[in-house]
């Protein structure tokens, strides 16, 4: 009534419902566009025309939706209206009586605000992944400070250690009137116990993942967001492709993705050297042709005799990447111990018979 009727605000007494509805266009029933066109095709434009028609026929011709809407409008059928409730924003604000320009005060306030925010998040069992500090300044635009974390944190001390150095760099101008802390992204932290006394907290800080996460955050903070990288294992038989480096985004459980699926044949860690050379270094090797293990080899100017050798393990370049025809597509790897007690990883390119050292076990 309020939207389509003559008055901005409408209150219709129960006995007048049908009469006041009759004048309204059918669109007021909140029916779908198709029904609306179907109705206009037969010349029905006002609700009154609908009300005059027999009930059953309406349903048969235009579907039950129209009937339902009609009943709801006239109050013959109940309509539940579910309100969407916005989640409470995870933010805390502190306003000052006058502009504040002293860093000590701001520090104290920010720390207090952090604690308040943490207290709020504690109840939700979530930790901060992304934090935004906004400073409302006098006679200037507001300035803000953001913080991204690799591991959801709700440790005030840790956050404080990250925030504190940045505070010094915030241009305060003529003073700050208001400070807002907003947890723009949070993540659930379930597996953390709550502690009654804060000192217990520091004693319990044994969770490795968290410790790594906090370290990474501090490193990132000092060295720049792209400076900290992580090495991840990739399922591949080709040693060069068995790992990738990427910027740390988040620290999960280190075993999570490895346990995700078990392969039929897997490479065990001991089969790969602890140090893999960026490019294989050529070596001169004395071995039985065509595919015997190495007996003596010369590498980095040193002549070495082989004490033991294990292998070969044949590694084939992935054919789908177009390596099939390349000359070093097939390599035979040997784990070799020389007389100095060093374990080296040698391979022979089967096509050419040339030898390379590809890594060593330290």
């Amino acid at each position: 009534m309020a939207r389509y009727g003559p008055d901005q605000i409408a209150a219709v007494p129960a006995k007048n419902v049908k009469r006041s509805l009759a004048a309204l266009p059918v669109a007021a029933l909140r029916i779908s566009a198709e029904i609306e066109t179907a109705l206009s095709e037969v010349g029905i434009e006002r609700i009154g025309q609908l009300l005059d028609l027999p009930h059953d026929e309406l349903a048969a011709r235009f579907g039950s939706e129209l009937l339902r809407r009609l009943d709801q409008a006239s109050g013959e059928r109940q309509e539940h209206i579910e309100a969407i409730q916005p989640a409470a924003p995870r933010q805390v604000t502190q306003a000052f009586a006058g502009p504040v320009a002293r860093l000590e005060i701001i520090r104290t306030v920010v720390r207090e605000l952090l604690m308040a925010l943490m207290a709020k998040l504690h109840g939700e069992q979530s930790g901060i992944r992304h934090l935004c500090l906004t400073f409302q300044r006098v006679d200037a635009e507001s300035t803000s400070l953001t913080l991204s974390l690799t591991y959801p944190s709700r440790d005030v001390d840790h956050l404080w250690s990250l925030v504190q150095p940045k505070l010094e760099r915030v241009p305060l101008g003529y003073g700050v009137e208001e400070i807002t802390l907003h947890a723009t992204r949070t993540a659930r932290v379930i597996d953390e116990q709550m502690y009654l006394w804060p000192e217990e907290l520091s004693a319990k800080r044994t969770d490795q993942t968290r410790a790594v996460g906090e370290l990474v955050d501090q490193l990132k903070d000092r060295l720049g967001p792209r400076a900290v990288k992580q090495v991840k294992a990739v399922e591949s038989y080709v040693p060069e492709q068995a790992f990738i480096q990427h910027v740390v985004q988040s620290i999960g459980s280190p075993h999570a993705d490895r346990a995700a699926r078990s392969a039929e044949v897997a490479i065990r860690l001991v089969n790969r050297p602890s140090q893999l050379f960026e490019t294989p270094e050529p070596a001169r090797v004395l071995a039985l042709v065509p595919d015997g293990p190495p007996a003596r080899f010369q590498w980095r100017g040193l002549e070495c005799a082989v004490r033991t050798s294990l292998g070969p393990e044949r590694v084939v370049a992935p054919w789908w990447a177009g390596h099939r025809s390349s000359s070093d597509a097939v390599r035979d790897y040997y784990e070799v111990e020389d007389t100095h007690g060093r374990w080296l990883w040698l391979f022979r390119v089967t096509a050419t018979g040339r030898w390379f050292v590809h890594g060593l076990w330290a």
Partner: protein
Amino acid sequence: MPAPQDQKVHTHPYRLASRRASAARGPIQRSGPSYAELAVTSNLTFLTGASHPDEFVFRAAQLGYHALALADHNSLAGIVRAHVAAKEAGIPFVVGCRLRFTGPDWLTVLVYPTSRPAYGRLCRLLTLGKRRAAKGQCQLTLDDLIEHSAGLLAILALGESAPSAALDTLHLLREVFDDGRLSLAVTRLFEPDESEWLHKLQTLSRRTDVPLVAINDIYYHDPDRKPLQDVLTCIRHGCTLPEAGFRLFPNGERYLKPPTEMARLLAEYPQAIARTVEIAERAGDFNLDQLRYEYPDELCPPGITPMEHLRELTWQGARKRYPGGVPTRVCHELEHEFALIDELSYAPYFLTVHDLVTFARSRGILCQGRGAAANSAVCFCLGVTSVDPARIDVLFERFVSRERNEPPDIDIDFEHERREEVIQYIYEKYGRERAALTAEVITYRRRSAVRDVGKVLGLSLDAVDRIAKQINIWADHGAGSRADESLARLAALGFDPTDTTIRLFVELVGQIIGFPRHLSQHVGGFVITRGPLSELVPIENAAMPRRTVIEWDKDDIDALGMLKVDVLGLGMLSCIRKSFELLEQHHSRTLTLATIPVEDPAVYEMLCRADTVGVFQIESRAQMTMLPRLKPRCYYDLVIEVAIVRPGPIVGDMVHPYLRRRNGEEPVYYPDEKTRRVPRKDLGRSTLPGTGHDSGYRRGRVYAGGSRVTSSGNYGLEKQGRNSTLAHAVYRGDDCQRLRAGVRRAVLQPAPGVQRVRGFPESHAASFALLVYASAWLKRYYPAVFTTALLKQPTDGLLCSGPDCP
């Protein structure tokens, strides 16, 4: 090279493939160390092995292997194919199976039966596991194996990842497979830690006194198939190649290596190489030829032979068919056929068919046989078909011949609404132990190949869809032969033909076409045996509840000379029966298929006007446009109409030449003398499938100048997909080589159409034409009755089960 023991080599489609291979193979090397490969996984372990069974066999023969054993995973589906190929290649073939268990799941045992009873036990074991599990799966435990272990040789394949419990299992299996029947597998596949593992295995072998045996755990016959194997693995796991990681094999060593190479790789373990030969010889005591298929014996009364019984029944029927005395021509024909049936001892087969037909008659179910054997005088007298041998030039030998030692093939169409009654009758009469449906191996077609390979190579869904829609890109080339053409067509679609992925894609799709994908059930092919079927072949559950399917398809069954009856459903039969009922009710006229007045000119008059709505088979638009031109005037014209007016021959451009020749507008021309003997009735335009058989051409291969016509479809075509194949089909074996190029072109020219839709063999058309005539007759004389019967049919088309013509 030992000569095949049985000179009567069974015809088998895979022989065709073998010809191709044998043409390419060089002299057999038989020097150096003896080695037999005992662990071969073929592509009948679906989406796992990357070569056909016959490819392994021929490669092994070429390399001079002592023997070859197929060991598919929990399956014996490939053994018949391999057996047939091995006979041709002249290499001993060993039946084997790789057993994977649900408990414990790390365990892999390869088993080889040494005798017929042991083979029966293996089949029972697999049947047990398969009947427990859902379709296509198998649930076995170690206890099941122990229970069925008598007479089996076993190889325990332990991986390095085997748990410590493996040692207990080894001890247990040593007890079970006593008498030195157990071996421990050693491999040299260049995998990490292999050398240490070999040492450990040797120690283990010495301690437990279980000898080592060398296997190369083969998945493809040629190293070039490694990419295909990777692709299949990815399809199985539903991932792309880069995602596959350790699910792929680490390298490409799982192919058939020369025996000298195997001996060199395992030079430190000569006893393991020698052991392969020992196992192959021991397991070689069993051979698939020992599977003597036995016809069910309850069909004839005790005391007389099946042949005597058949004669008696036939003469009884003949007297009924020809009340005025059996014509001499038919008498001669009957005697001739009896001689053949007796010689090949097919009497029980005819009795089985007769039994089914008699049952159907007793229930008032209308039925009719078709297929060349069905058009025999014997079948006419037995009431299997109503095609009067006096009316059609019968060529019984075409399907039942001395030369091809395979059972005659009769399809019986039943009213589609009541087919289930017949099926239940079979199950009831013979029991589920002795009767099951045959399998149909579903293979990769172009569309499915494009989709699956495209996904694995990481092409976008959109790109895959685009290619899949333009499917004729892979007209029918085999691996690589016309890859350039496909690339050109892809380029027209906007793909870069120089791109590595696209090139790989074309190559792999070409390779994968024709590869088995899964087993399905045949439309209605029943296998019936005298003894328990599960001791002959593993039986598994079908997708349909309460249906069971054997692991072999119809070609395998043919190769072993097993009995198969096709029980099919046909909507028109229901319609005709309803018409007969209505006729009796309202016009008091009793008719049967055999008593409808024949060759009525009024009926043909109607057909020439193309007034055929509702008439069986010839009511389509294509048929209706053809009728006024073909002007059918007699029964045989209808046969031709049914056989040739089909998409295949039309696309293959054979129908119009036929019409021109028939109307005398074009001289009849035969490409050469050899083909002249073939097509007599179709005027040199070899339109009729089946006409090739007169000159002894291969069954089911001759269609429109040479293609295979079977319900299991274009296996041969799609797999081989080359014109040379077609030439092979028409001209057996070496004849092809001598074939003049011009002749070859003339014979093979219609091929493109053939590829897509198959035509209809003459013998099947003969039976169908009878129904065409019957329905046309009803329409002409009793239109009200006919229309009523038609309208009583379910609406979803009349032909319930498609025209299936094995």
